[in-house]
């Protein structure tokens, strides 16, 4: 399947000499600090490549200053990228003129912001309908569609409230509804839950997972929170100093960290929740008893604990009838004990 979004060699350099930096391979090779010292320019995004598949929940994770917020703004050109290509459904959106870009924003993407960005002088319903209003959708139709998404995000009954009468979590539901109202192909989330309390954050994460399942949209989600990334992401991109460190599924990051930075990052992750059997299985030894139960390699360790420990002999990891390896008590205990 063709990717929805395909990003190649994307650079965003801030500062007076941005164009010069982007044109020079020598300057591009410098580290962020060296570049800052030499030219006064700040490279926020440095040569980023990735693809997002249709319907995927793609998470970009990094600490503050890693360039992740700039990256997501580059994707919709809220921040103008310095060089590179961003292909969206086969079209290089860096070549889109202002009108085309507006069309794309009106119909194809929408974004949910960390600080909500609601209009304080409008009711919930009018906030949700804002995107439709600027497209020129007639009032009656707008109201209908707003009501649909308000119901979808669980805000029924609050249509006439003003944003400052709602809690943070509710306000972000309005932001979510506003983004959904235009029926976009892709939703971008810029750290949407960072400003919320932990309990509400968990609710909202479940809400997004539910919506992702129900509406099946492609989503690009920015976060600084690894557990949020692991919980939501089909695939996760880890950024550091504007560069991509690693792209992969959660178990790939935990099982095969690309470098010490990622290893350090995932150290405190409860591995049994993330790792699957394929990461801990070993080749069968001659003395192994091979008539034990079978499990798929994608089985998460935690779910395999009970069956492996109660089997009393190694469990076979099998895909399509082919024996990939075995998992016995010591492998399982190695993971579980390693967390303690």
């Amino acid at each position, binding site marked *: 399947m063709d990717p929805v979004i395909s990003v190649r060699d994307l650079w965003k350099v801030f500062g007076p000499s941005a164009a010069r930096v982007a044109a020079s391979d020598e300057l591009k090779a410098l580290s962020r600090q060296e570049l800052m010292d030499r030219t006064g320019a700040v490279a926020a995004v440095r040569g980023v490549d990735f693809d997002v598949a249709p319907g995927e929940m793609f998470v970009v994770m990094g600490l503050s200053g890693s360039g992740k917020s700039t990256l997501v703004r580059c994707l919709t050109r809220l921040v103008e990228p310095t060089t590179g290509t961003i292909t969206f459904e086969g079209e290089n959106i860096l070549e889109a003129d202002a009108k085309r870009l507006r069309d794309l*924003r009106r*119909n194809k993407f929408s*974004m949910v912001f960390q600080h909500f*960005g609601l*209009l304080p002088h409008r009711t919930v319903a009018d906030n949700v309908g804002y*995107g439709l209003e600027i497209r020129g959708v007639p009032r009656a139709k707008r109201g209908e569609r707003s009501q649909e998404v308000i119901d979808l995000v669980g805000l029924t009954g609050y249509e006439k409230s003003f944003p400052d009468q709602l809690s943070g979590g509710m306000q972000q539901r309005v932001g979510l509804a506003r983004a959904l109202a*235009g029926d976009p192909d892709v939703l971008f989330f810029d750290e949407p839950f960072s400003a919320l309390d932990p309990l509400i954050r968990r609710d909202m994460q479940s809400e997004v997972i539910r919506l992702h399942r129900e509406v099946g949209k492609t989503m690009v989600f920015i976060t600084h929170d690894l557990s949020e990334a692991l919980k939501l992401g089909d695939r996760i991109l880890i950024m550091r100093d504007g560069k991509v460190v690693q792209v992969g599924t959660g178990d790939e990051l935990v099982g095969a960290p690309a470098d010490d930075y990622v290893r350090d990052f995932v150290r405190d992750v409860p591995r049994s929740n993330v790792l699957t059997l394929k990461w801990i299985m070993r080749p069968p030894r001659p003395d192994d008893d091979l008539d034990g139960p079978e499990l798929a390699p994608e089985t998460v360790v935690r779910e395999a604990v009970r069956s492996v420990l109660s089997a009393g002999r190694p469990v076979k990891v099998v895909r399509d009838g082919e024996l990939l390896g075995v998992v016995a008590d010591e492998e399982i205990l190695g993971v579980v004990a390693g967390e303690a």
Partner: protein
Amino acid sequence: MVAVAAPTSQPRALQHRKSLVLAGIVVAWLVLWVLFRNVWTLSLGAADLTPLHRWINDVNDAVGASRNSNPVFLYFFNEIRLVIDEFVTFVQALIAQPSFGRPVPVIGWLGVVAIAGFVSLAVAGWRVALLAVAGFVFLGLQGLWQESMDTLSLTLAAVVISLLIGIPLGIWAGLSDRAHRLLTPVLDFMQTMPTFVYLAPLTLFFLIGPASATIATLIYAAPPAIRITAHAIRSVPRNTVEASESLGATRNQTLVKVLLPSARKTIVLGVNQTIMAALAMVTIAALIDAPGLGKTVVKALQTLDVGTAFNAGLAIVVLAIVLDRVTTAAANERRGLPRWALFGGAGVTAVCVYLSYTYLWAAEFQSDVEIGSSINKGATAVTEWAQDSLPVLTGGFKDFVTFALINPLQALLAESPWFLVALVVVAVSFLVGGVRSAVVSAACVALLIATGLWQDSMITLASTLVATILVMVLGVVVGVWMGRSRRADRVIRPVLDAAQVMPAFVYLVPFLALFSASRFTAIIAAVVFAAPVAIKIIADGIRAVSPATVEASTALGSSSWQTIVKVQLPMARGALTLAANQGLIYVLSMVVVGGLVGAGALGYDVVAGFSQGQLYGKGLAAGVAIVVLGVMLDRLTQAAAKRWTN
């Protein structure tokens, strides 16, 4: 915000040395003053003119002669004048002056009161509407209906033009950084320039009358509208704008649907500021023959008729309060009126307007209970009583300030040889602000000499300094009190707010009553005019001192006095210098008004220039001298502030 870095010993020693040098300069000045008193003072008699003044008179005559032949006038200034005159005359025809062949204005008093009430009801609620109706009826009862309506017409005309120019410019400055950078210094200049000095040059181009008055008002009233609109647009949170952009809004859509609605409340506050500034300026523009209440006050002041001045001053206050309350309430979030009330109100208003158009009783304010003359008589009686029975109090205070402060300072400044004063000024500037300040001051001194009004400038400078000292004393005492006590703040702040809303003229009246016409009266009026700003700045500065520091000081066993002197005032020194700077500028802007009540010197020169043709050039030069003094003092205090706070 205040950096609490411990001062190292090096700068402290430097400061100590500077104080010594400063003291040396003063001592040397005193000695030389005794030796060279009253020589080379560049004095100029009241009716004497310099070649420059005569040259300006000639230019004025030449401009007057070519007004209807020179293309610049024919196609530019005269056109502007005509358009503005037409507009003002139209508004006056509606509510103030007999018009369209009728013996009365189109809308009589009943109609105006009804419109005022209805508009207030619609934007500000029924309480304010009641206040507006009562206020307007009161104006009629004072016997000042037509004057009030003239003032109101001129104010409204100037406000409409100010907003037509100011809000678009403000939006532009809000959206574009370049426009913002371009406009800020221009606005700074417009607002630091004492208000009266551009009256004279304006009459050169637009003649005496409504057009000049309106344009002067415009210059004074448009900056707040521009500034506040720009500020309001700029304060809309970035993420709200970004959210709108991310949904594909065009620039116009973002402006109309996001920026302007979010900024609405603040912009209405800007409108309030513009209206108050316009009202203040319209009354002052009476000096160049603008019709209305201001003219009544000026005439009464010139004949020292306190009763009449008080009555008209009171009308200005009433008008100011009504306009302020209505626009302030409009800025606050409120639920709209129910539909029936709006329609009902509109109906009643229409009927009233029709009645006032048709029937004489509703058109001309004729009342059997005329209270204007009672107010007039009452004020006169109180004045006479005060002057007769409180001479110890009023006279004592007046004599003390006059002999202890004004006279010595004036003698020192105005009776020293000019080069001595110039040298001292430049030397002090160098000490305070370095080479740059010294150069600016030297240039200003040279300009003052060039105006031919050196001695008058020095007399005005002496009064200004005395007034500023008094402002600072008041500012520190009241400001510290307000800064330390929430309760004092709650009680005093509204009074200060109200005082700031009042047009400058009004202050003169009660002090004229108490102290009769003299330099002292003008100084006290200036102090009262400038004190609210200084007090507020200092109070806010004191309040901004971190409570933790104050608490620490208290925990160490400081008395209140020690805490104030050793902690709060030093930490609020940024506010103190700002207060001094603002105090100076406010005082200076009252100099011309003070000229009406015996302040003499530059203020008198300006006022006389308005009324006597042969003194026109001198008046204009005096205006320039006031500006030069203002620029010099402003630069100097700002340089001092920079040095002192860093």
